[in-house]
């Protein structure tokens, strides 16, 4: 979009204020991660003590690893599945689309704790059946004269169920974010491409996808955010040996959230910021190089 007029000073100020609003609490948190004392409100001098202790704390380190892994995997899977599903939904007649969209938004509308508990009950029920089955049946295969006996593994809640739960609550956000782009898209474009001899896979890849890309990106961002921040659903679906960072943080609220958590949050935040800066610098260099070549 080109609206000709650039933003005036007043508009820039407004943007600045919104960003201040978004970042004020974060700055405060970063400052207090360098506190020598253990408080998050009383300043006792500068120290990197909590950073040193953080790396000794394997409960937190382990949970950071799990959080990143589950969020990245869930976001990737949900983005692909959600985009396909959104394209499918918007190609349907309204009679079909509307009820499906309603079902789609259930995980969003439901209170987290209800989603968490009901998913947990579902997993427990399914695994109960499966484990009964696994206990009594074995698969015997005769291969090249040798007999292999395959015993079905027993299942329990763990990383797999955690991932399923995250994918489930992520997909609605992708669909909701891609949907408007699909509505905005000119429907004749796809038909035209197909009339011109594109297979419909090509039409999807070359016509639809570039059009809805901003929606996919913002959907993926939202999904990743939801995954990182989720506590309740994870708590009920992670089983007894897996723990995410959010679970570790909420687990501390019976006593107090330790200052190491401020330190780990700061590190994560700064890492993402640094990545962002690097990507941007590289891109702007590439752009400059392209311009030079051009002229």
């Amino acid at each position: 979009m080109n609206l000709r007029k650039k933003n005036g000073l007043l508009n820039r100020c407004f943007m600045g204020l919104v960003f201040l609003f978004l970042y004020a609490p974060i700055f405060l948190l970063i400052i207090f991660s360098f506190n020598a004392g253990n408080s998050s409100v009383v300043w006792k001098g500068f120290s990197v003590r909590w950073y040193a202790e953080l790396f000794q704390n394997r409960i937190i380190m382990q949970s950071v690893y799990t959080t990143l892994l589950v969020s990245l995997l869930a976001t990737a899977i949900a983005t692909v599945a959600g985009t396909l599903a959104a394209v499918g939904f918007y190609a349907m007649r309204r009679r079909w689309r509307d009820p499906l969209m309603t079902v789609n938004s259930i995980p969003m509308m439901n209170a987290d704790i209800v989603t968490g508990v009901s998913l947990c009950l579902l997993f427990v029920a399914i695994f109960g059946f499966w484990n009964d089955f696994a206990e009594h049946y074995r698969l015997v295969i005769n291969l090249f004269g040798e007999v292999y006996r395959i015993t079905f593994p027993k299942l329990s809640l763990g990383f797999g169920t955690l991932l399923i739960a995250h994918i489930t609550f992520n997909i609605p956000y992708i669909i909701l974010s891609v949907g408007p782009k699909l509505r905005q898209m000119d429907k004749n474009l796809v038909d035209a491409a197909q009339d011109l001899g594109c297979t419909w896979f090509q039409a999807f890849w070359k016509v639809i996808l570039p059009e809805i890309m901003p929606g996919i990106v913002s959907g993926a961002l939202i999904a990743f955010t939801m995954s990182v921040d989720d506590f309740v659903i994870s708590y009920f679906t992670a089983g007894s040996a897996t723990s995410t960072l959010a679970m570790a943080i909420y687990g501390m609220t019976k006593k107090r959230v330790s200052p190491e958590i401020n330190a780990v949050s700061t590190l994560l935040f700064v890492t993402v910021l640094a990545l962002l800066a690097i990507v941007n610098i590289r891109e702007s260099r590439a752009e400059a190089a392209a311009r030079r070549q051009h002229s």
Partner: protein
Amino acid sequence: MKRIAALALASSLATGLLLTGCSVEHVSSETGAPVSSGSGTEPGSGRVVNVCSWGEYIDTDLIDQFEEKTGIKVNYQTAESNEALYSLLKSGGATFDVIVPSDYMISQLIEENMLAELNYDNIPNFSKIDDRFKNLSYDPENKYTVPYTWGTLGIIYNTAMVEEPITSWSAMFDEQYAGDVLLINNSRDALGIALYYLGYSVNTTDEAQIREAFQLISDAVSAGVYQGKVMDEVFQKMEQGNAAISTYYAGDYLTMLENNPDLAYVVPEEGSNWFVDAMCVLKDAQNKDEAEEWINFMASTEANLANMDYIWYASPNTEALEQYPAYYEETYGEPLDLELYEIMAAPQEVLDRCESYLVLPEATRALYNDLWIELGL
């Protein structure tokens, strides 16, 4: 078209396999040998123990020490509260071996037949636990539990904002401090405060008494006495001097004191709650031997000293209690303030006026819950 369908099918199949694969791995390598021994997909499966406790409730070095000593891998998870733990156990979402609930939750779990009896022959360190903490009302024959920590609930107040020393629960309802009092956000503790003040038992099932206690709090709410209902936010609020009076646990008072020297702690004269958190093993635990080994380790004097120093909650281990002042002096090079030590490990005469929570019958629990919601309407 077919290509796409095949692609979709294959990818969903692949994810399916990946997911089951992941779960299997967890079963075999982490929940342990007994269940999945048949699956034969265990890369060097060792012994494990699944522990669930509260966050910031252990000196994490102890976990490493235990693993080094025994070769048992510890999966340490944390829960938010006794109720959250109960909720998770009830829905079958987790198979922990060792949990560390508080007294009233233990008696509820025993009542619902969810705990396993311990084999105390495997826990020789149980003998070091002080007799005061054995055969308590939540586990009268001491068949299920080994105490982990204990402490008192009391009033924490800011001496810069409150003139005369507080000695009674009446301060929690006093309009003089309107807007500066923090109510604890937990129906049992909050109503308990009012029950102590009125001179009733905190384990009463008499609806009239409970309603009277509720009325007391409700009136104070209408009079604007409370700034809010808090749990761990109490740390921030008291440290920054945003509130004058609050109710919280002795061990946590000591943490706050580091950041705000104006704070004082008192166990009111009407009596208060004396809580014990104890380790127990769940009935369907899959690693009972490892669980008992863990419990034995955590009951040792060394572990108790380290924990006491880290979390500032008193230990039930007799030797640890005696040795702590010396341990403190050795570690920090300065003598321990005995007054503070007595706040952490309350002397017997204080405990005598305290009472511990027992599980309430279901009807009373529902009443507590309803009243608590009514307060938030």
